[in-house]
């Protein structure tokens, strides 16, 4: 039975084995390899995507559980013309080195800033505590997220 949902604004219909995680469905069936798979058991956060507005780990979700939802992957948070403010901030602060963790950092930060554009450094650290980075030491990532807040604030 096909599973129907939306990915980055486009409807998709996929037929996969029931055991296929949403992460593997995105990467292998929909060829959206921006979503990274690090640990496959919920500890690294590299596979984070946004489902109906909530950041979730796509390795801990079955494809079938995405039925009827709207999924945003890291590909959906970029455009071909220019860097988004969040991307530009990551670049400015050197918030990535090898880049493996970056898709999970970007999706998580986007979900956080969309909901809480006024969050402080402590809240950013708290939220990013579920995303492992083996390169940067995190400080530059926290700074990049804090610096991107202004782009998410609604004009008064």
């Amino acid at each position, binding site marked *: 039975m096909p599973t129907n949902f939306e990915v980055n604004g486009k409807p998709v219909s996929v037929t996969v084995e029931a*055991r296929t995680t949403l992460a593997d469905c995105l990467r292998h069936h929909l060829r959206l390899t921006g979503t990274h798979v690090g640990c496959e*058991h*919920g500890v690294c956060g590299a596979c984070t995507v946004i489902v109906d507005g*909530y950041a979730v*780990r796509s*390795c*801990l979700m079955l494809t079938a559980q995405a039925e009827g939802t709207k999924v945003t992957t890291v590909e959906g948070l970029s455009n071909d013309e220019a860097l988004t403010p969040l991307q530009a901030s990551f670049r400015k602060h050197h918030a990535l080195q090898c880049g493996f963790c970056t898709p999970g950092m970007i999706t998580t930060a986007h979900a956080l800033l969309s909901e809480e554009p006024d969050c402080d450094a402590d809240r950013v*650290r*708290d939220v990013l505590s*579920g995303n492992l980075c083996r390169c940067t030491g995190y400080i530059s990532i926290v700074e990049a997220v804090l610096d991107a807040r202004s782009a998410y604030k609604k004009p008064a």
Partner: protein
Amino acid sequence: MKLPPLEYACPASLSEAVALLAAGGGDARAIAGGQSLMPMLAFRVVAPTLLVDLRKPPELKEIRISADGVRLGAMVRWRDIEDDARLAAAHPLLKAAVEHVAHYQIRNRGTVGGSIAHADPAAEMPGICVTCDAEIAVIGSAGSRVIRADDFFVGALTTALEHDEIITEIRLPAWPANRRWGFREFSRRRGDFAMAAAALFYDQDAGGSAVNAHVGVIGLGDRSRRLPEVEAALNSQVIDEALIERAAEITSATVDAQEDIHASAAYRRSLAGTMVERALRSAAA
């Protein structure tokens, strides 16, 4: 690792879900948020042939607050508790404990029912259920029943649930407005499971003495437990600094602690005492 081969069903009602679990024998399993079950599947610790998704039955998603206390539907997520402003007054101990559960993304899917069914000895929610004398409402092919938290948790990852039973609701008794409470947890990183935690509360009589003391510990031994010796030491006493120190000593002396890769038993016993001490100090402040 990839998950073992399995089938998936997403029934619209609780009765269908129970029927699917009953028909599957021990080989069918409920899936709620999947935040414990998916890792268990990936590690192949469990290999059910059918997963029964509980996300559709609407009656499992509600948080109900009344004079009788707080009722959490089994599919209430950590995130829902965090977002519910009423709970700060209706059950501050629950709210404080849930702040320590897992990370942002996991909190967006993990549920209270899944947590108590999973019964990790270091998980916060089972500890709150035991400390607060919660009742667990379940439904199975033999009908509905209500299980006291103390009888529900049998040991590590083991509960009194039958294979065809689904948790529907967690019932926490009413919380008096001026109850004193404290929650303290120690873990190496934010969001990790507790190395040791203490959840406690007491009421005060007209003379300011503690009555009805409930002291629970999390992350020690094979399940969360209350500490009757510590509760006895607190009841009918005015809680002062000397008594707080005494309570910490009794905790370290009586608590059941295990050694594992994270800590020695002696360290855990000492840590448990410190958590009770700090939780009591914040309760008394």
